[in-house]
């Protein structure tokens, strides 16, 4: 069915979704300090009251970046320092223009216990989501999706499929994207994307920070309060 004389084709992914993995400059000792702090503060009074209570998945209030504790402040700085180049790389802003933008960010932490999961969610009033891994067990043999961050397919996949569209190659293939959290690594993607953390089938906890971030022009007033 192919023909050597076929006209040359330019093939482009025209609706690309940015996704970045960033390894932050966070030392193992700082991560351990942060983990100890978060674990100690995973209490009822700090739990997000608007979420369905789940004994296997603790979700905190979204006030983490208001804490004055040194480990939180240090990781916040590293996290935003890791996020900004990712965002800059996706925009038409020059570096100087980007530097004039004001970044706003809110964060919460989640502790996903063995057999727990974080149900699908997307973020409101934020352009970017950053998920930083504080703690995660090593990969489980034979359970490829244990504790992964699963980003749901966002393209409007048509309901018609045939032998070709069923087996499209990257980056055209449909399907969810999986990211394996590793301590010290961060995923960044548009905040509107539905995502979940799949069932943690390991014996240890997964501790993540989930950040909502957005950027404002100087003097911009249209963005509503969080």
């Amino acid at each position, binding site marked *: 069915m192919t023909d050597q004389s076929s006209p040359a084709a330019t093939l482009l992914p025209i609706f690309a979704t940015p996704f970045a993995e960033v390894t932050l400059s966070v030392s193992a000792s700082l991560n351990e300090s942060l983990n100890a702090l978060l674990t100690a503060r995973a209490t009822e009074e700090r739990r997000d009251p608007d979420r369905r209570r789940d004994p296997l998945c603790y979700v905190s209030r979204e006030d983490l970046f208001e804490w004055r504790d040194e480990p939180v402040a240090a990781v916040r700085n590293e996290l935003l320092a890791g996020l900004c180049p990712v965002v800059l790389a996706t925009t038409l802003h020059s570096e100087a223009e980007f530097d004039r933008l004001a970044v706003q960010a809110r964060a919460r932490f989640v502790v996903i216990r063995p057999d727990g999961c974080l149900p699908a969610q997307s973020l409101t009033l934020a352009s970017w989501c950053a998920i930083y891994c504080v703690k995660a067990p090593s990969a489980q043999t034979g359970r490829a999706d244990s504790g992964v961050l699963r980003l749901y397919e966002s393209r409007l996949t048509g*309901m018609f499929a045939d032998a070709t569209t069923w087996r499209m190659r990257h980056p055209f293939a449909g399907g969810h994207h999986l990211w394996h959290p590793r301590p010290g690594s961060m995923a960044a993607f548009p905040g509107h994307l539905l995502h979940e953390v799949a069932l943690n*089938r390991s014996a240890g906890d997964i501790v993540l920070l989930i950040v909502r971030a957005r950027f404002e022009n100087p003097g911009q007033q249209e963005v509503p309060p969080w």
Partner: protein
Amino acid sequence: MSSPLKVTPGFAVPFAEGRLPACERLNRELEALFLARESEEYRNPTPSHIPQAEMFESRFNLFRWPESCVQELRAFMLDSVARTVLETSTIAPAELARLRMHNHTWYHITRYAGSFVAHNHPLASWSAVYCVRPGEAPVDRPGSGLLRFLDTRAGAGSYLDAGNRTLRAPFATGAREVRLEAGQVVVFPSYVIHEVSPFYGRDTRITVAANCWFS
């Protein structure tokens, strides 16, 4: 004085829900049959998802099984789909009777920590799920074993302010969750993305799913 304002749902998604009356005997027979055939011979050999040890998925030919309990369920589920088509389309009963309804139908047996990832069903128009056995519903795990339909209005909830944060049904955004009960059937368009949240009962959750298309 302002003229009357008519508000309608502009992009409605039909969901049908029904119950099979006196379903206990049928469900007992189906459960016994399904558990007896929870084997490699009857397992779906080409799953579209990452298989889980906690969830058995049968081949997609369930409604070709001759057992009377299966055929009884077939009549109920396909009738539910047909009635949904009549309720939601301009097709007259006589026209529908002339169409051929095709189906792929299978069953799931889910045990502790089993789930099913978000998906939809290309090349089908209507899907249905019937609950043979909902399984234990632990009181401390309200999110266990939910059939969750994701909002088709992708991105609609990304910007929320005081003007749209408290929209009422059917305008509110967000997922629609169904805790199935024995004998309950739900019918929905096959394009709707849906998933089953992890099941935390200590027993089994058994459902039958069908995809239907017409020619």
